[in-house]
């Protein structure tokens, strides 16, 4: 079946603009995760959803970042008033459940460049 998909694959924006990054998880997967991969910070956890709820938002870097998930499926990560330090690859993953034995399947990521 289809894997995790993310769109757009690449996004170039100007500083101060808002961007929306989309993640389509594998059908039937209840858990969804967002990670950020940047040169300075490596791979860091941002937020996860179990169903439509996000119990832990502490990984979001600032209040300019928000995420939502609707219908237990598609998730959107929104960055408001983008800054150059937001430039990174944003990875989404989904898993059947939330346990460690539930493999997280990753999408190809969205490369965000803030000019």
């Amino acid at each position, binding site marked *: 079946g289809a*894997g995790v998909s993310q769109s757009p694959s690449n996004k170039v924006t100007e500083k101060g603009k808002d961007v929306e990054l989309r993640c389509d998880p594998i059908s039937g997967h209840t*858990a969804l*995760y967002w*990670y950020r991969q940047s040169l300075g910070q*490596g*791979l*860091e*956890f941002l937020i*996860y959803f179990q169903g439509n709820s996000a*119990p*832990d938002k*502490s*990984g979001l870097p600032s209040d300019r970042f928000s995420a939502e998930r609707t219908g237990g499926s598609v998730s959107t990560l929104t960055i408001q008033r983008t800054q150059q330090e937001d430039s990174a*690859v944003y*990875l989404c*993953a989904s*898993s059947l459940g*939330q*346990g*460690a*034995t*539930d*493999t*997280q399947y*990753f*999408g*190809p*990521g969205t*490369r965000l460049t803030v000019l």
Partner: protein
Amino acid sequence: AQTVTQSQPEMSVQEAETVTLSCTYDTSENNYYLFWYKQPPSRQMILVIRQEAYKQQNATENRFSVNFQKAAKSFSLKISDSQLGDTAMYFCAFMSSAGGTSYGKLTFGQGTILTVHP
């Protein structure tokens, strides 16, 4: 908080040879899971192997095996009979088995770029 350290930024190996990637971690927990993920140039992370801390036996997946030393908090990945398709960045990762709001969260090391030469 848990930390994961990969001290080898880059490694290279000849095709058909064996290579070992190092990983150490720090945690106060007794039960947890460790992973190795592979990220090829396509950017898509792929799970290579998983180890449960309470299992003493080292996990193996075909040409991939781990050397898990719980007391030393070490978790190295051995790739045997290296193939050109193994060229990728490899990440070591930790996941707590404790409940709570961060259940399921992966903490990654900095990554090791592995190049397999023909």
